[in-house]
Every structure is written in C-alpha cells, then in structure tokens.
C-alpha cells in the first residue's frame, strides 16, 4: 500500500520534471507576450511610438464604432478587411483540403521507398526559406515570367495574362505555403484507416459512395478538422504572401497589423487588431468544433436513414 503510494509520488515528480521545460518555454514566450498584447490594446499610443500608460478604450472604438474620443475616428474599412481576410483563409482551407484529401489516399496506398520519397517531397519546401519560395512564385506569375512566356510561345495566348498582384496570385501563394500543414494530419488519419472496415461496409451492402460517406469520411474527420484548423489560423494572419503577391490590391488584416507596428508606430492599435483576430479565430474554431461534434452525434443517432 505504502509502496504503491511511493510509486505514485515518484511518477508525479518525474512527470512534473519532464513537463517543466515546455511549461516554462510557453509561459515565458507565449503567455507573457500575449498578456502584453492584450494590455497594450487598452493603452494610448505615444506621440512618437511606444505607449502612454493610461486607459484608452478608443482603439476598439475605432474598429467597432462605439463612442469615439481621444482623437480617434470610427473606420468601417477595418472590419471589411477582417471579413476579407476570413474569406481568403477559408478559401485557402477549402482548396488545400480538396487537393490533399485524394493525394493522401494515393500516397497511403504506396509502398516502401516510393512512399518515403513522396512524403519527403511533400515536406521538401520546408527546407527552403519562405521568402525565396514566394519570390519563386513572383518569377512564375509576372507578365514576363515562366508561365506567361510558355503560354505565349505555345500560342495559347497573345499577350501575357495578368496574374501578378491579383486575388488569384494571393490564393495560389497561400495554398502553396500552407498545403503541407493540411496534408500531414490528413495523411496521418488516412494511413490509420482500417481498410477491412471498408470491406465490411461493402459486405453489408453499401455502395462505394455510401461507404465513403458513412465510414471513410467520419473516420478521417479528425485529420480533416486538424488540418483545416492549423491552416486556417496562420492563413488568417498571414501578411507575407499578400504583400509580395497581392501588392497594393489585396490588403489583408495581417498587412494592416504589420503596418501599424512598423510604419504607423501605433502599437496599441496593432495590438487591438491582433486581439480581435485572436478572439475571432478562437470563436470560429470553437463553434466549428462544437458544430461538427453535434452534427456527427446527430447523424449517428438518427443513422443515415435517408442514405
């Protein structure tokens, strides 16, 4: 009995010891900056950058338009940009999901060296610097770039297509940057899928489509949800892709925040925008998680009587 308790205590101690580095790291480099951001969002911007330590709710007022004062004005454009950024992030998630899901099945069916090579190829972009990779797209998409020269010399088009600094370019760039983050969780869940279940479903009379909807999709849903979440969050705040490939045409919330900090030197307003993004992301992810969970349990309860 006492020996049992000693083992228990020993286990607790070693667990605490093992977890302390990551706890410290997160505590120092995540929670403290997060706290600073939230606190700054309620402070007055200093004349030449920095902050003035007095309570100043008008940063939020400037965004949402409640009683304005302190020299700030309500600007509905920011909310518009926020919604626009949401649209880009959702598009990035959908396109990379559609691209990754079938490929994950394809790769999971490969064997040995070919499979390893394929997985290596998918993670390969991580080995090159992000800016260089974005510049590569610049070379590909610009009017005198590779794609346009190829199209012209093959006679498909007369004059170069205008692809640079468009919404299209931004979407292409975002999907390109975030696709490995979508692929890996989906691949992990597809790889774990037990194919004997697919056969069992067939054996019980289900057509391929019914099997997909009722067996394959629910069992790979954790990968889809995971991939979508970790693509959506950074895609919403991304500023490098739109500033390189979108030029002045595509302004996303990330660019606005970047400018508040680096050019306008208005740290409190930048912090406010960051806090609002963070809040909306957390709300969306939470609603999404709750929504999918209840819709899953609902379909499980009623079965697919219609299908």
């Amino acid at each position: 009995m006492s020996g049992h308790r000693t083992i228990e205590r020993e286990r607790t101690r070693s667990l605490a010891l093992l977890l302390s580095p990551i706890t410290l790291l997160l505590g120092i480099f995540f929670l403290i900056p997060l706290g600073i951001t939230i606190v700054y969002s309620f402070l007055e911007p200093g004349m030449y950058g920095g902050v003035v330590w007095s309570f100043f709710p008008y940063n939020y007022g400037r965004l949402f338009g409640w009683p304005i004062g302190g020299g700030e004005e309500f600007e509905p454009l920011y909310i518009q940009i926020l919604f626009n950024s949401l649209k880009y992030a959702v598009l990035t998630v959908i396109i990379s999901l559609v691209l990754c899901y079938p490929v994950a099945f394809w790769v999971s069916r490969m064997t040995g060296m070919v499979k390893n090579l394929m997985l290596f190829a998918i993670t390969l972009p991580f080995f090159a610097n992000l800016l260089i990779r974005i510049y590569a797209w610049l070379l590909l998409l610009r009017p005198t770039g590779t794609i346009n020269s190829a199209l012209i010399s093959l006679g498909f088009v007369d004059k170069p297509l205008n692809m640079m600094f468009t919404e299209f370019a931004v979407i292409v760039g975002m999907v390109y940057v975030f696709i490995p983050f979508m692929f890996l969780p989906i691949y992990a869940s597809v790889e774990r899928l037990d194919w004997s279940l697919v056969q069992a479903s067939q054996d019980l009379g289900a057509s391929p489509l019914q099997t997909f909807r009722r067996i394959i999709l629910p069992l790979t849903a954790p990968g889809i949800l995971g991939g979508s979440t970790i693509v959506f969050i950074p895609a919403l705040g991304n500023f490098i892709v739109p500033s390189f490939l979108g030029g002045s045409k595509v302004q996303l919330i990330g660019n606005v925040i970047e400018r508040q900090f680096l050019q306008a030197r208005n740290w409190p307003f930048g912090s406010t925008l960051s806090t609002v993004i963070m809040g909306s992301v957390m709300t969306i992810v939470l609603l999404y998680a709750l929504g999918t969970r209840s819709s899953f349990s609902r379909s499980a309860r009623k079965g697919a009587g219609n299908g």
Partner: protein
Amino acid sequence: MVTDHADDNELLRLAGARKSFRLPESGTVTPLDGVNLSIKKNEFLTLLGPSGCGKTTLLRTIAGFEDLDEGEVYLEGRAMSTVPAHRRPFNTVFQNYALFPHMTVAGNIRYGLEISRVSKMERAERVSDAIRLVSLDGLERRKPSQLSGGQQQRVALARALVNRPRVLLLDEPLSALDRKLRQSTQLELKNLQHTVGITFLFVTHDQEEALTMSDRIAVMDRGRILQLGTPVEIYDRPASRFVADFIGTSNILTGRLAKGRHGSVVQIDGGPEIHIRGQRHANGSIVDVVLRPEHLNLEKIEQDISGHLDATLENIVFVGSDMHLHARLKNGTPIIALHRHSRGAVGIGLAPGQTIKLYYEASAPHLMESDGS
C-alpha cells in the same frame, strides 16, 4: 468436368474455381486450383486446412472481394461473377470482426438494414431481435472498444445475421478467443445456425472446431479440396495421408497388402503384420494403414480377429483425462497410443524403456492407397 446438373437442395456451387497470382518473392501462388464444391441449403459447411491452403481466398471469392481467373460461383444456378460484392446476398463475419469504431453496438448491427432501406419500425425490431439472439442485451449503446473480444465477436455475428443473408461466411471468427470461450461459442454457433436456418460457410484451421460444429467438412490443401464429407466420415475414413494427419492424431504405417484365407494382413516394411478386415485394395498393393491412438489398447481385446504391436515405451504424457503413450516399433516407427485411466493416473505401472503390447481390433485399421510419401 462439372456437370450442370444441380440437385434441388443445392444453394451455392463453385465450378472449376481457379485463381493464381504472382508474388515478387515466391513466384506464382495458386490459392485456388480448380475447386468444385456444392453447398446445400441450411448446412454448416466448414473449409478446413492449414494456413495458405486457399480456404480464405475461397471465402473472399464467394463474398466478391476477389475475382476468379477461371470458373464461376453460382447461387441457385445464377452466376455471380458480374455481381459486385455489395450486391451479393452474403454477409461475412471477419476474422478481426471489422466493427465500425465510430458507431455503437446497435449502430453497427443497424448498418446493413439502413443501407438496404428497411423501414424504421422493422429495423428497430430486427436489431433488437438480433441483439437478443446473441445475448448482447444492455450493451446497445456501447462502442466496440468498450467490449470484450467475445462480445465483439457477437456483435460481428449479429451485424451479419440481421440482414438474413442467403449464406453466412465466417472467416476464422473464433481464432481470437481464448480456449474456454471458443469451446462454448462453438456450441452456440451450431445452435444459432439451427435457430436461424441460414447456410453457414465456416473457415478454420482448427480441426477440433471443424469436427464439433460442421455438418460437412471440406479439407483443403494447396488450393484443392482433398476430401468432402461428414466429420465422422473424414475422421474414420480419411482419403489420404494428408487428411489422416491433419484431422486428429494418426499413426500411419506403410506396407504391402497380403490377402489370405484366414483374413488379410498388411506387412509393414521391417515391422509387424497388421491384421485387417475388409479389403477394397488389390492383393499385393502398397497401402497406408491408419491406426488412431484410441484404437490401441494396453489390454487384450476379446475378439476373434485382433492383433497387437510390440513397442518400446519412450514417453508418458499426462494430459488430464488421458495419457498419451509415445512408443517406438522395432523398425523405428514412432507410434502414439491413448490410455484412458479410469482408475487414477498413478498405478498403471508403466515406465519409459519398458516393452509394451498395443492391442487393436481388426476392424480398426483404415486402409488408404499409398501416395508414396
């Protein structure tokens, strides 16, 4: 070749089923090498054989998961090769059960009925009947991961049976259970088959399982059916050395048949003569004689024609109700006899090294044509 004549009692027929495929390491494998098999309505037929004999491939062919290179599967005379797996009126109990982990017990059992659009009322009734049939009452809302191996096996069974398949295909469904549970489940399965009146096609490598449950057994090896018959037929009159060896324990001795006026004997090379009765085989032909361990007794049998073997006892193995006597004939052939000790395990007064006489009735030895191996 196969005739197209089918008797009225026939449900499923395999005609000239052949399948082979190429493996990079071991060359061409032929899991089905011309299988003909007729399965009757409401029978419990077992495909028995060592692993790799083709029995699982045969089952998967019937289920529709594999195509045949040659031959055809007929259900009541209708060819099945163009019917995809999900349209065949067969259901399978898989070896690993393949229960859907994201559905409850009831959800798993309901699945097939939902797919085939059985009305909600009938569905609920059939699901609860199936749950009662396999004694899973009260576990409807559990997930498969919350069940024991035996319970999972019952869910798999109910999930298949609830669809009332024409044939239930069972792919070694008991192999994951422990010995005690396996034995009780064997009897339950047999009773269940009786209750539901569905044809069972059962695959196993366990001869005891096959003997216990089956109406008929098809013994398979290397893609062929070696013998098809009732458990008693297969046990008492094995058609070949392989069958005799695979089903139960056998002493197989090879010798020359000599017919005489006072009964026939088989002269074993460098060994004894074995007295036999009845002889379909030609005088002087080389035959294999099968003597089951339980046919060899330590006590003399009061019979007109009987014989005995002289052997040297090497080992006495105690297995509970019985003792296995491992002995060796003069010509070096090992032989196993079974001794049932009705008066306690001690005091049979035997020790290794001792010479013993093993008596048998002349009707006991079973003769097979020697396949020369």
